[in-house]
């Protein structure tokens, strides 16, 4: 009986964390679509990456705790997100230096 109770508790926590990560994903997506500031768009991209990481870690913790491959994937995603943030911020810096603005809708450099 106690085992079943513990199981259901874990199961509730699993759903809880999944819903939390989907919330984080949706709010990051909303910010990425609507924000005019480029740095804020990048921050929302980081939020999306974090939501996906939470999903990976949750699944690897609850379904694959023998060999945690989800966590290895999460480490890969963290490294790629760090590289992406560095490149994105340097591009934003250059755009700001050339155009004196950091609003997304003022940049139409790429015509076709």
């Amino acid at each position, binding site marked *: 009986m106690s085992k079943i109770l513990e199981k259901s508790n874990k199961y509730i926590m699993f759903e809880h964390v999944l819903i939390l990560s989907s919330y984080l994903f949706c709010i990051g997506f909303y910010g990425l679509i609507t924000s005019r500031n480029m740095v804020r768009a990048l921050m929302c991209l980081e939020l999306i990456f974090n939501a996906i*990481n939470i999903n990976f870690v949750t699944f690897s913790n609850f379904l694959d705790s023998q060999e945690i491959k989800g966590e290895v994937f999460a480490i890969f995603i963290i490294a790629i997100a760090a590289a992406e943030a560095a490149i994105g911020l340097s591009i934003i810096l250059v755009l*700001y230096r050339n155009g004196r603005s950091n609003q997304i809708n003022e940049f139409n450099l790429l015509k076709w």
Partner: protein
Amino acid sequence: MNFTDSIRNSILVIIETGIILGSLGVVSLSNIIYSAFLLGFVFICIALLYLTLNADFLAAAQILIYVGAVNVLIVFAVMLINKPKEINTLEKWNISNNISLLLCTSLFVSLSFTILNTNWSNLYSIQHSVNILDQMPSNIRLIGNNLLTTFLIPFELLSILLLVALIGAITIARRAEFIEIETGDSESLKSKEESVERKK
């Protein structure tokens, strides 16, 4: 057992409210430096969430990389690119914002509906029957084993990618300055005039 469970649940609730309110603030605050610092707060809360999910190495990596590197980089960029008249442009609330808000809420509702309706207990029971012997090696040892056996080639590719990103970021951020120095003042004046004309 129940006592630790209740403590764990309350800690989880605190962390989750931190994440929810913090991410809401990241998106909706008008001053961007506040949202940059709130992003660091959200990252720390996510690291604590990893700790409750038995992923201690990942929590440490999250704090080291996200809070220590990415967030500092973002704060640095915000302080370099700071416009005082930013609040005016951000306050515009037009119909596209409404549409995207509706879209994202519907996405969230459908996702949570799917999560709640899926029968996870089947998967969980399968896993539990396998996972009877709970004498696992430590988390870090497992991750190291995986990185150096199954994921060896992606690991090496990742190191190359990080090197390329490092060099690429330096060259991208450096080039504009180079051009301005080399071509002298007349060229930069021309480009400034062109940009002014474009704005007109």
